[in-house]
């Protein structure tokens, strides 16, 4: 059963609502708020498709629905990619901006850059990764299982030795 990730996305919208993004990115044809608007629309589409998936009836075509969900996810991921790149650029722009630029009301006067941006980027990466894991499990019927229970309690000593590789049988030293 696919998840709609509503809780996670709502948390992201909370971070992004009213976000001040600092100085302008020179020559950029788009903005972080523009991309967030696009993302919201596409995530809504995704969630509606997942809801529809949950009420598939006899005679419906769940595979076609899954394909639509995947396509919608790709759109989400495409916007996410642009958004993350914009966030990277914005963080750089804020870091290198002259002090005066950061004193404008629309930006953050007390910090070199807005740390919320980085948090937004991290959260976005996390939820999109989780969505894809969810989709992979559904689409490929793979066993995507957590390994947490196997992760604890073992301490390993590092060991590196020098290799002595030999030539393959067909190789003739020149």
């Amino acid at each position: 059963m696919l998840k709609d990730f509503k809780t996670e996305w709502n948390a992201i919208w909370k971070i992004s609502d009213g976000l001040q993004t600092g100085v302008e990115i020179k020559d950029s044809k788009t903005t972080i708020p523009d991309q967030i608007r696009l993302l919201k629309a596409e995530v809504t589409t995704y969630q509606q498709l997942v809801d529809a998936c949950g009420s598939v009836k006899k005679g419906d075509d769940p595979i076609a629905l899954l394909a639509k969900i995947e396509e919608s996810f790709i759109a989400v991921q495409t916007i996410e990619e642009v958004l993350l790149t914009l966030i990277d650029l914005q963080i750089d722009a804020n870091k290198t901006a002259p002090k005066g630029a950061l004193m404008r009301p629309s930006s953050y006067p007390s910090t070199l850059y807005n740390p919320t941006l980085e948090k937004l980027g991290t959260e976005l990466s996390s939820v999109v990764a989780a969505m894809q894991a969810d989709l992979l499990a559904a689409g490929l019927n793979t066993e995507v299982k957590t390994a947490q229970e196997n992760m604890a309690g073992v301490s390993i000593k590092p060991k590196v030795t020098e290799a002595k590789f030999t030539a393959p049988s067909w190789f003739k030293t020149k």
Partner: protein
Amino acid sequence: MNFATAHNAITLPTPYNQNSPADQNSVSTFINKLFENGTGQVRNPTAMTNGILAAAQADQPGYWLIDSATQAAILELWFTIWTNHVLGIANTPTNGVPATTRATDIALFESIAAYVQANHSALYVPDITYHGPVAGPNSAPVYDIDGYERADLFLTNTEIAQPRGLAAAQKQFNILAFLELFATGAHFVAINSVDDIPFGTPPAFLDMFKENGALYEKTSTAYMHSHYSGAKGLTNIGAGYAYPNDIGGSTTGTMLGGYIGARTGSTLRTIFGAALGALSDAITADDAPTPCPFVCSLLAGNTSWLAPNTFFQLEGWPGILSRGFGAKGRHGQDFSVHQTTKWNIATYGASPFSEKRGTTVFLAPNNWNPVQSVTTWTQYAGSKTLQGWYDTNLIRPTANLL
């Protein structure tokens, strides 16, 4: 290293290597033959799985789908390109590189050689021994790991001056080991994260595929891969690059119609509205082009979003995005065998060195020490995020490491 070879291994037709344009056409026929199964264009999954499991039980470090003469033809070519570049010799027919060799093959191995030389890179290969199959429904082989074997790949000035000396010969064997692992599909991580090497961090291996990199013009952005979660998403635009970008047929098509090819840097073009096209390549065909390079499906990408390392591996064939994320055609069939065995599948063979069992091969400065803590999976930027596909049941440390 002694690899197992399939009993019905495919051979490269004899005309190859004679500098005739027709010869590289034979490569196309040969590569398509690697995927033939009756009249189909995917490999026989049962034969592949059985061959891999037999190779694992025989404790082989890989499984070749090509015969010894073909291994020699392909790997000697790559090796010649690499060593010529290091020795300052042009990669031309008079220097052992046939005129029909595809430019993408030459550029790739020249770039890797240059990176290795510039950064004093060594190969770190997990020292693994076959342990047995997992009990229960999972039939993937389990391995014991006893640390890493390190082998320098770069030639010193003395070795370059005396390329026939004993020291240079050992380096050459090491380079051949790298190429064998590469050709059979081992998963490599180039350690270039400041988190893993705080001082003297090497430049990102991935840079060679990005704008201003030597391979950029022939690189596409791959939308889907089943590797590092968190590198802008589990499989991410911008976190995965496909090289070369002219394999698989059409160079037109829609973003959602096939495996994706957005040129590297297209995201920046979206943002800045640059004139260059956004989508230039789409893999739509399970068919080798004519002429055809030997490297048809290299995947490279970041291992994490922040301070990433670079992963790269030769895959069997580019994926066709469709229902189930590429689970159809050549790529899908190989992926299915990979899921069963957790061996990686390349065009020419298969490898137990998969990040999914914690047996990643590393390319790192020769003074780097892999750190193993908490789990048997070596800690590096990208592995520190728990991945759903990582199966700790498939690897166990030897008593020496506990």
